[in-house]
């Protein structure tokens, strides 16, 4: 059997235990506060890491978007330059074809116009005042020539047979007289013929003008018709070059539209990738923040719970110390009669 513990000893033990309990509660509270602080630090660290990670992801997404947009636009510019060059070359070829066609037609038209010019020059040359005067004098001269070539013969020498135009005597005097009269007649005939020729020659200019006009009409007629044929087919010959120009323009516009569409698609893809990557980064960051916040809140709640337990423990310890002081041996010489009186058996 153990020897019974004295009251003083018991009191001392109780006081010690109470003190230890109070200290333990304080330590527990302190540790809980430390855990709460640590949880907050962990939250901050997790949030920072999540932000850094998300920032890196967003940054990389932005860089990828920029690279994609740059590549798309560079390709677009390169393609557009090629299309523009091709379009310009095709348009230039069409314009050249148009000009060549016009040039060929103009060459033919010039040749036809030269035929018309020659006829016009001939017409003008044939109807000048000197030319008309010459026509008139030529007419009179021709009349004189015709008359001279066809001047009637005078009386012929006697025909021994008694026939023919033997109206001339063998008498020299008669013949001389007849010669004088014949010469006189010839002179009169020429004078008369000259008058007739002169009178008829007045029609010569009009006749020359009419003939010149007829010749001009006849001369330019084939060229006129050829010119008409040339003009009538001109539009048909020019049409291919016009269509070629329109086709070049249309194809160029269409190809530019293709390039722009392709470029826009690439830009849209880059934007979509960027947006999605950003959203995922934001989601990850948000999740991490939420998880960290949840963990921190849980840790702070646990710490608060531990702190409350610590406080409770400390209170129990303090209560024990109070009881030891009130009802136990006055270890420190302090008089505590009220307590001793109230509790009875444990007091001195």
């Amino acid at each position, binding site marked *: 059997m153990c020897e019974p513990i004295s009251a003083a000893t018991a009191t001392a033990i109780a006081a010690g235990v109470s003190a230890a309990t109070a200290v333990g509660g304080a330590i527990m509270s302190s540790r809980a506060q430390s855990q709460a602080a640590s949880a907050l630090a962990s939250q901050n660290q997790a949030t920072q890491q999540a932000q850094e990670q998300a920032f890196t992801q967003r940054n990389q997404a932005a860089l990828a978007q920029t690279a994609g947009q740059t590549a798309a636009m560079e390709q677009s510019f390169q393609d557009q330059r090629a299309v523009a060059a091709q379009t310009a070359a095709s348009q230039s070829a069409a314009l050249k074809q148009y000009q060549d066609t016009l040039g060929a037609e103009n060459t033919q038209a010039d040749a036809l116009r030269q035929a018309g010019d020659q006829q016009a020059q001939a017409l003008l040359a044939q109807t000048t005042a000197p030319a008309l005067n010459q026509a008139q004098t030529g007419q009179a001269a021709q*009349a004189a020539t*015709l*008359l001279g070539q*066809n*001047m*009637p*013969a005078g*009386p012929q020498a006697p025909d021994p047979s008694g026939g023919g*135009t033997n*109206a001339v*005597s063998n008498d020299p005097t*008669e013949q001389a*007289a*007849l010669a004088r*009269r014949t010469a006189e*007649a010839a002179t009169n*005939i020429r004078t*008369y*013929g000259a008058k*007739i*020729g002169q*009178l*008829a020659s007045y*029609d010569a200019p009009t006749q020359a003008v*009419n003939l010149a006009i*007829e010749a001009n009409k*006849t001369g330019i*007629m*084939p060229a006129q*018709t*050829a010119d008409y*044929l040339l003009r*009538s*087919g001109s539009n*048909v*010959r*020019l*049409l*291919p070059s016009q*269509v*070629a120009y329109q*086709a070049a323009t249309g*194809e160029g516009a*269409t190809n530019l*539209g*293709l390039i722009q*569409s392709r470029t826009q*698609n690439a830009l*849209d*893809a880059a934007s*979509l990738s960027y947006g*999605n990557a950003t*959203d*995922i980064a934001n*989601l990850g960051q948000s999740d991490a923040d939420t998880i960290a916040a949840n963990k921190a809140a*849980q840790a702070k*709640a*646990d710490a608060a*719970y*531990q702190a409350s337990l610590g406080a409770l423990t400390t209170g129990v310890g303090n209560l024990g110390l109070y009881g030891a002081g009130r009802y136990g041996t006055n270890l420190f010489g302090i008089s505590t009669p009220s307590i001793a009186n109230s509790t009875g058996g444990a007091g001195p």
Partner: protein
Amino acid sequence: MCFHSGGGSSGPQMGTVQYTDPNTGQTNSYYTEVGVPGDYAARGATTVAQYQTMASQDLSDKQIAAQQQIATQQQQFNQQQADAQKAQYDQQLQQTQDQANRQSEYDTGRAQTLAQGTQQVNDAFAQFSPDYFAKYAQDYMSKAQDDITYQQQQAQKQLAFSLARQGISDSQAGVNQQGLLQETAGRATAEQTANAQSAEAQLEGNVSQAKQNLLGQVTSSESIGSPIAGSSEQDVNAALNTQRSAISGITANAGDTVASLNAVPAVAPLANIFSGILGSTGSYLGGTNAAAIAANYRNNYTGSPTAPGPSTGSTKG
């Protein structure tokens, strides 16, 4: 009471989720945070956050794939439209170029036909030169002169006979009458020169008009045709052949026209240009004879040689 675990759960609620692989049919259980679907658990997701990230990534991949597919289809459609447009342009270009080639061939053929027809007409009328018309006038004069000469010869004979009957062949009166005959013939010839020149001018005008008419027919036949070439090579050749046939018919007529213009000069028949002279000569000589008879009568029956008649104008004096 628990002094160390706190008042509630300090971490995510965990649980077991099962997933059956549709490819293999194998079912596995995964211990994950509650809320993680089995397929994502099978892919390694253990938390809801991982699952959401994976799901977001899957959605992003699908969106991008869909966008790329749409873009590809749009590009293919655009390319098809562009190809169709280019094919249309090429076809249009080919058609217009073919039509232009046919038009040039058509116009060239018509121009050549026109030139050939013109040349044939010009060849047919080449003989009508200034010398030709001058010769025509000369021929006219020759024919007219034949008539004049014939009448003149007859008149001279009649005059000679008349003078001989009167016995005054060698008289001044006879010489004068001879001169009158000469002058009358010459004046008739002179008048015929005007007619010859007029006929020459008329012929020249007729020739010019005929040539113009023929060329007009040639050019008209060329102008009547369609100004636009046919839609095929056969159409062009058929049109050209039709016009060549039309022109050949016209140019063939050029020979007939020229032949009709080559007629011998028609000289209007002359009237008796010496009738007046011969008539007046007869009257004159009749009067002379009457005067001579009267003088002889007086000389023979009255013996007074007076009342001389008109002088016979003998050149012998």
